[in-house]
């Protein structure tokens, strides 16, 4: 028994590294309550070690802990995305006034983001329905606490309550759906569920109800309409660093889990007359239509409501809902190309979205405001930051030569290859709508004058270095994307599928 556990530990070595790091952070925080800087460095060092261990796991394709977790290229890819965004968020938090004001508890803060990252890393590998539920809750429970981290601010407290109520409710419904799937198939292992469903004896209606209930849980995690109600409030109220983390890493983990669950559970592997890379669902499972409706609703509502927002954080919240809609399009295609497109999009999204939130945070540090009107004249006061924000926003819109263009292009290309021209057109139209509200911020920065006699804002070198390390990839992947595409196409493989 013990030997099996020890031999399995090798497969989850990156998670072990993160666990050790978070324990160390907590203990050091108890010993020395004043030095948050050291804790940040320790957390980042641990995360880099985990990243290194992860790179040695690329290409591994097996399952561990009696089929509970898969360690396959798909999981490894998403773990890299999660760890990279955790590193960026940890460094970013060092520069955040919101977090630094909480001097006594800033050690707990790094503990919280590390444990969120740990939960997410388990989420992307989970290949058992019970494990999926547990890991989803593991990352959610810490997210509730983290979004209410600045205990003095009313907004943050309210955000954590709303997140808690919506999150616990949606995951409860998901659990009920899982119990129905267990009743229908007699197993919780997703590959086992697939085997039973292939025999086609279970009740269609119950299967549809159960899969929609599970979809509620996933929809909440990726903030898809109509399960998005928590998103604007939590993104506006939570500390900006946590908002950035939720919008990238948490969404990536939710997407990875959803992609794995639906592909492995509902794939019909007996059909062989399909173009390479495409697959088909077991007859009677109408999840493709449900996803299509969800995707169109999500991007349209996200983009339309964003038009009316005056708070930049809230605007970016609606924009991140819309981005989830574009990514859902990649799932609708039902082909490896679509999945690879979503995975490419996440790497791109990691840099551009974290970058946008980082600039918003730096500006809020100096001006104490997140209102779009206070961005007037920033182009003159702090040219570098304004140009960077403009690049991130252009990239979020999906215009060349930025990386966002490649992300969107791959998704629309996979739709067109699958002959879903109508949906692709809706997606492009949505991008046009989104241009309006992104450009509103850029216009305020460069074409509108602020108050007279405003001083130029200067930022220290360290903050500019982090900015550059987000800005350069956003431009780089817009021009040199072949390797990223190859890596994503290699990483589409999941354990349990041929």
């Amino acid at each position: 028994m013990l030997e099996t556990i020890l031999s399995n530990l090798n497969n989850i070595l990156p998670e072990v590294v993160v666990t050790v790091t978070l324990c160390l952070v907590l203990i050091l925080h108890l010993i020395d309550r004043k030095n948050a800087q050291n804790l940040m460095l320790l957390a980042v060092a641990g995360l880099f070690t985990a990243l290194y261990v992860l790179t040695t796991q690329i290409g591994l394709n097996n399952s561990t802990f009696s089929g509970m977790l898969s360690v396959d290229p798909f999981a490894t890819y998403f773990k890299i995305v999660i760890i990279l965004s955790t590193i960026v968020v940890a460094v970013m938090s060092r520069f955040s006034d919101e977090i630094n004001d909480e001097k006594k508890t800033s050690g707990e803060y790094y503990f919280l983001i590390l444990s969120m990252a740990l939960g997410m890393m388990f989420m992307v590998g989970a290949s058992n329905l019970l494990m999926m539920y547990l890991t989803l809750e593991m990352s959610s429970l810490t997210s509730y606490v983290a979004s209410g981290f600045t205990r003095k601010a009313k907004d943050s407290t309210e955000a954590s309550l709303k997140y808690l109520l919506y999150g616990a409710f949606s995951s409860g419904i998901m659990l009920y759906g899982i119990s129905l799937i267990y009743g229908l198939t007699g197993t919780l292992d997703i590959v086992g569920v697939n085997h039973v469903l292939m025999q086609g004896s279970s009740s269609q209606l119950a299967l549809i109800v159960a899969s929609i209930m599970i979809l509620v849980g996933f929809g909440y995690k990726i903030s898809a309409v109509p399960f998005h109600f928590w998103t604007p409030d939590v993104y506006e109220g939570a500390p900006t660093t946590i908002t950035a983390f939720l919008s990238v890493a948490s969404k990536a983990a939710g997407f990875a889990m959803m992609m794995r669950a639906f592909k492995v559970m509902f794939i019909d592997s007996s059909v062989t007359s399909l173009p390479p890379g495409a697959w088909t669902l077991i007859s009677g499972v109408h999840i493709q239509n449900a996803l299509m409706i969800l995707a169109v609703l999500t991007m349209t509502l996200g983009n339309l409501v964003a038009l009316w927002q005056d708070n930049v954080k809230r605007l970016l919240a609606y924009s991140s809902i819309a981005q989830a809609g574009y990514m859902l399009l990649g799932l609708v295609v039902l082909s490896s190309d679509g999945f690879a497109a979503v995975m490419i999009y996440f790497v791109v999204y990691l840099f551009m979205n974290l970058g946008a939130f980082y600039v918003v945070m730096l500006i809020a540090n100096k001006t104490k405001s997140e209102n779009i009107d206070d961005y007037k004249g920033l182009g003159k006061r702090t040219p570098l930051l304004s140009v960077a924000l403009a690049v991130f926003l252009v990239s979020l819109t999906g215009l060349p030569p930025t990386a966002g263009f490649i992300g969107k292009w791959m998704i629309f290309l996979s739709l067109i290859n699958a002959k879903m021209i109508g949906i692709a057109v809706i997606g492009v139209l949505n991008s046009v709508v989104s241009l309006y509200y992104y450009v509103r911020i850029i216009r305020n920065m460069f074409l509108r004058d602020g108050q007279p006699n405003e001083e130029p804002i200067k930022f220290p070198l360290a903050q500019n270095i982090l900015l550059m390390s987000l800005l350069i990839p956003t431009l780089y992947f817009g021009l040199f994307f072949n390797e990223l595409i190859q890596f994503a196409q290699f990483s589409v493989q999941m354990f349990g599928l041929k």
Partner: protein
Amino acid sequence: MTITLTHFLIVSAILFSFGIYAVISRRNAIMVLMGIELILNSANINFLAFSRFGGMNIEGQMAAVFVIILAAAEAAVALAIVLNIYKRFHTVNVDEISFLKD
């Protein structure tokens, strides 16, 4: 009368509906959390009933144990957040705690 799987499923479906009703209709945060607890427990009844009467493996009972533990952890975090809310707003009515505008 013998108790069969169907009876358990009906009980759990009723509990689930009560849970949903409580979450939607109650305005007190604590009552909403109790509704969520009902939903979790209805799923637990399902797991146990399927495992015992469905002639299935022990996986369902294992799942139920994990869910019980998780419900306890969730209650701890949830009550801490509600306590924090009460300190800030002096109320736990979810309708009154709405300062983030739409």
